[in-house]
């Protein structure tokens, strides 16, 4: 019984806390619709894509028509199918990168903010330096050593976004540390680890959610940038950034659809995350006022 109670109350708490961050309104609705649509597209790619995304056909450079809604590229691959399958790589890379960034950045941030001292100063300095460095260039450096592959792209993105989570978590922890309920827990003899886990971490959740969506928007652009530069996938894997690059030479000669649709999807997906993040950020700052 005790276990069940604990479980359900934890879930309830989580729900309650995240609900304060979930806004209503057009911005949020549009954003979440875009994200869900892309996620569904990635999950059901084999069912909804009209052609094999990697198969070259003699139908080259066909403009958008009823048989190829987004046209075909220079080797006759169907753009729509490639766009549908391309959502898989970008989502997977960005999500796994974000999870790694969070798993490293959040604990370090809580530790830094709660314990303080020399470790905090050193960590902050290192994190601030990484944060100040152009993220795409840092990602290029890492990806260039590791070699081009989606997994390595995810690793480089993860390193790049650790400081984002660290800085946010540390800042929040610094202010939470002074709150009365933390004081109360401490006076009742709660250990540091317990306070960090039970009082600091849950209160960070709404902000984590906002930072997650905003940095995911950023990471999508960076991922697309890396694969645009040829540092992520190798052909014939469908990938938005790579496909955009592959069609670039054709764009200015009039075959605009090869690059345009993958590029549009990159911006659209990033927009979805940015809209959700903005809407949630506003909600939180209103709630805290």
């Amino acid at each position: 019984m005790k276990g069940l109670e604990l479980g359900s109350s934890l879930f309830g708490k989580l729900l309650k806390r995240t609900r304060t961050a979930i806004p209503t309104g057009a911005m949020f609705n549009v954003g979440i619709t875009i994200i869900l649509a892309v996620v569904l597209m990635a999950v059901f790619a084999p069912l909804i894509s009209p052609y094999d995304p990697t198969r070259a056909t003699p139908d080259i450079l066909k403009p958008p028509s009823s048989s190829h809604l987004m046209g075909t590229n220079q080797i006759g691959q169907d753009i729509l199918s490639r766009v549908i399958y391309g959502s898989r790589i970008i989502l997977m890379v960005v999500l796994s990168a974000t999870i790694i960034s969070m798993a490293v950045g959040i604990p370090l941030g809580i530790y830094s903010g709660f314990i303080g001292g020399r470790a905090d100063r050193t960590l902050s300095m290192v994190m601030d330096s990484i944060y100040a460095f152009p993220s795409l260039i840092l990602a290029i450096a890492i990806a260039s050593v590791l070699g081009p592959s989606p997994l390595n792209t995810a690793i480089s993105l993860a390193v790049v976004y650790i400081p984002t989570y660290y800085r946010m978590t540390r800042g929040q922890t610094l202010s939470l540390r002074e709150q009365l309920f933390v004081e109360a827990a401490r006076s009742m003899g709660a250990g540091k680890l317990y306070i960090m886990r039970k009082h600091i971490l849950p209160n960070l959740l709404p902000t984590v959610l906002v930072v997650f969506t905003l940095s995911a928007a950023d990471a999508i652009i960076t991922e697309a940038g890396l694969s645009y530069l040829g540092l992520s996938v190798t052909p014939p894997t469908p990938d938005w950034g790579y496909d955009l690059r592959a069609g670039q030479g054709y764009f200015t000669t009039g075959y605009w659809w090869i690059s345009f649709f993958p590029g549009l999807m990159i911006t659209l997906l990033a927009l979805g995350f940015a809209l959700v993040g903005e809407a949630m950020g506003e909600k939180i700052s209103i709630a805290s006022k």
Partner: protein
Amino acid sequence: MGSLARYLVIRALAIIPTILILYTLVFIILRILPGDPILAVLGTKNIPPDQLENLRRMAGLDKPLYIQYFSYLFNFLRGDFGVTITFPSGVPISTYIAQRFPATLELAICGFIVSIVIGLGTGALAAVKKGTKIDGALKLYSILAYVTFIPLLGMVLQYIFGVYLKWLPIAQRIDPGLAPRSITGLYVLDSLLTANWAALRSSVLHLILPSITLGIVLSGAYTRLLRNNMVEVLSSDFIRSYYSRGIRERKINWYALKNAFLPVVTYMGLQFAILLGGMVLTESTFSWPGMGTFIVERLDYRDYTSIQAAIIFFAFIVGLISLIVDAVYALLDPRIRY
């Protein structure tokens, strides 16, 4: 020593750790991460050992790590960035950087100016029209600008203004054969200094599309920041007192803009770093012969030493920029002193 000078000296010293951390970080990434850079260069394990040794020596990889760390840093500070190890091998990387960096700087400055002009204009407009449809539309603009993928915007602009309207060139820095005599390496400045009007015209025309692409993408952040600052300033007491004294609204808005501008300056340093990242994509899209395309080209050749030098060079630039931003901030705000 005046207080401003003292402030600047202290800030300059404080930049050193940042640069060292960045240098160390890049060093760790490039040297200590798994993967042998030389084997990655060759793409094969079947090469004669003496050739491998030779390449290692050229890349400075034959010495112990801590010696590599310090000797590279020391050489770097003297302007010796090492030599290329793949085709064309043995060329000092400093000659490439001397050639490529001015191109990047020129485009970065122009893109930066475009972003400030658009950002401040839209931000101030949104603040003055707070709560109206214009404010809402500009908010959407700021988000859209931020998430726009640079190559997509660049290609669309190339198509409209370069291919369809044929108004502007879509690649390179200048028409072939027109490059002005090099003094600073910045074509616009060099053509002015040498009174070479054909070169001036061509280089300015070449700058327009990439600068606008870069500028638009970066302007979104300024729009937001300035709007929010200015809304706050506009609701403060001194603004109300201006109104009560009958000062014209235009003038009041101008005062508010000036006050709202200060926090934007601090943000510029960070924004400049984002700009350098965006430069790589912009340069790639417009075949702009700068540092970004240099990195991409050398990536194709897997020229490890060039990539390393270029990235450490960027680390120094980032440190330098944050120093400049501190200096500008101190000049603008007399309260900032030690």
